[in-house]
């Protein structure tokens, strides 16, 4: 049966229109609302608002905390990308290549943090970092390293660094699975051929595994960058609230503070627009940076 043009368009409309309506309501409308509100001075707790043009954007450039929040975000992005990718790759290779009998068990263990809420992870790690009762200081004391103990989250110099560990711990599992999927798809014959040619395990990893799972690595990096720029707010809010003295504020947590704690909703919206622009630029830059020819053997 030949489908008429009309039927074809009707089917396409049937598939696309509901999606487009949902996308408009839940993505486009909030996006443009945020952009619209960024031109107003308003508390966000009433309908009162005053049009201030680009004042909120001018304020962005004057605000001394903004550059610090951007740096904190990128610090988390860089450390998370490096930490998660190295750990996830290491575990994925170990579980697929080393023929470990307990591989399924480890797969579940490493994936476990991914099914936990970030809020729970934040609270859990806040206890681990507790200066008096926490596991880290207790462990250091047990090892006779008392001088290394400190109030990790309460110290301006250490608080941001302390957020990296839970962020990496929480992120490894998903990317480990992604990479394991990629590695499992590499034909065994490639490794056999490499071995016949005299390649050792390390060379096999660099010359076979890594190039062939590059698409998964690329997607993982992009995903970590996007989720960190947009989502590191949660772990910061739960563990430090942006403190001490703004030492851990990321763009998202500072937006929340301005919009909902200091009642500068318009300024908060302007910070939101800034996050959008920075995220877009970063992703575009990464797309260019990570672009490589597809490797096929």
């Amino acid at each position: 049966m030949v489908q008429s043009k009309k039927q074809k368009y009707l089917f396409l409309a049937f598939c696309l229109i509901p999606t487009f309506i949902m996308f408009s309501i839940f993505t486009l409308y909030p996006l443009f609302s945020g952009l619209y509100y960024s031109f107003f001075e308003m508390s966000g707790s009433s309908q009162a608002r005053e049009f201030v043009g680009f004042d909120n954007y001018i304020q962005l450039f004057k605000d001394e905390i903004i550059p610090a929040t951007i740096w904190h975000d990128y610090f988390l992005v860089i450390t998370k990308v490096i930490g998660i990718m190295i750990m996830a790759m290491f575990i994925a290779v170990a579980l697929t290549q080393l023929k470990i009998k307990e591989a399924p068990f480890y797969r579940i263990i490493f994936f476990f943090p991914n099914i936990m809420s970030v809020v729970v992870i934040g609270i859990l790690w806040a206890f681990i970092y507790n200066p008096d009762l926490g596991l880290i200081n207790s462990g250091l004391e047990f090892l006779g390293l008392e001088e290394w103990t400190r109030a990790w989250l309460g110290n301006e110099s250490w608080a941001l660094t302390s957020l990296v560990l839970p962020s990496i711990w929480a992120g490894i599992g998903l990317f480990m699975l992604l990479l394991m999927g990629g590695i499992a798809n590499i034909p065994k014959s490639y490794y056999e051929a490499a071995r016949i040619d005299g390649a050792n395990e390390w060379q096999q990893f660099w010359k076979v595994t890594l190039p062939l799972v590059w698409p998964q690595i690329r997607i993982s990096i992009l995903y970590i960058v996007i989720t960190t720029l947009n989502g590191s707010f949660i772990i910061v809010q739960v563990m430090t609230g942006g403190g001490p003295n703004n030492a851990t504020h990321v763009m998202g947590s500072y937006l929340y503070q301005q919009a909902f704690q200091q009642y500068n909703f318009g300024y908060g919206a302007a910070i939101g627009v800034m996050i959008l622009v920075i995220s877009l630029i970063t992703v575009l830059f990464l797309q260019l940076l990570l672009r490589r020819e597809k490797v096929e053997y």
Partner: protein
Amino acid sequence: MEKRLKGRLLLVLLAAVLLVFVAACSDDSGTEDSSDDSGDSSGEEISDGTSDGEGLSGTLEVQYFVGGYGDSWWKEVIGDFQAQHPDLEIVEHAGPNINEEMRSRWVSGDPPDVVYIDGAGSSETQMVEDGQLMDLTDWVQDIEVDGTPLMDSFIVPPSDFDGSIYSLPLVFDTWGTWYDITWFEENGWEVPTDFDSFMSSMGQIQEDTGIAPFTTSGQHPYYFLRGMLYPAFGAAGGNELLNDVITGAEGAWTSDTVLDVMKKVEEMQQEGYIDEGFGAINHTQSQMNFLLHDNAYIPVGFWLPNEMEGDKPEDLEYGFIPSPMNEAGEPMAVVPDLRPLAIAEESENPEAAKAFVEFVYTKEYASLFSEHTGAIMNLEGVDLASNKNVPQYLIDANEMINDPEQAEIYHKPHPMSADLETPISDSLVSLMLGNITAEEFVEEAEAAAAEYRNSQ
């Protein structure tokens, strides 16, 4: 021809859709009008009802935050009010996150009728600035409490916003410094009465136990700002200085008096008396550390015992003193922290709202408030000492606060704006962690005050 017909049909269809939208919109506004009408009519019913001896009718929505004081007092008061007005439907909006949950109602101009302003996410100053609260200036003049004008019955008068009253202070709370009486008696530690004795007491405690004696919440630095610094500013410069630092007056934060106070904080830090872990903990964690004797002093309001009721070790006995930041020989300073009750400007049942607010302010409910919450309601002449259900620490604190030789009361003009309090709190944490000096702190605070003034 057929095409033109189809076009017309499409236009008619479009017009019909638009008409439906317009009708829907006008229906909405109609509902608002009619609900306004019903609000008005309920008002008329009240005046008629009052003369006829009938109760109020319509709906009364009450929003109250449930924190350290719990909600049992509210339940009792609302229950009694309901019994008096059986035709009135009372809707309670309560909980620890109620300010956030009700935000959309306030934003959309459909607020509850009565609001108790307390807890995270609420700001009396912001609500007044946004025009969300009803001007009660004239109305409150005619209200009486057990035969005395309400305005003459307050321990602390209502906040003054350019000569207008938008809220009535309900809870007379005050920040102070808590300690464990049992622990202090066991160890023979002196309870301080001024800053010097405070420092020597902390030194003694540190020597005896090895702990950092003082803790507070670094995640909520306003606990220290309101609990220690406000009394210190009051003691050092009276109401005038308190007013200047809260309003961010030019030169207030860099004045010698403020610098002297901040030097005291710096001294506490340098001596190692402030728990260095305070920077990351929230208020409940700091309170828990206090209960576990990880620290000996903590600045909190009267709600501490109620909030930590389930965690209190059996032998711990709460002791409360006004924060001892005063000089030797001078009375300790108390700066009340008031939690007000207000009526929404857009209340749909203002008569019922006013009747409820009036109903709440009686000495009977004030005494009951202390029983239920362990705090004081902002009414004078309430006999707490003879009420066996009022906790002893509150009776002692009440006596101390009302003894001018022991403590002097200073008043804030209104709460500090979040735009000023946040940057000052940030710098305060830095000072208390030893990362900046007192001189650097006052400079940073003055800069924050200048920015705040410019934004007004």
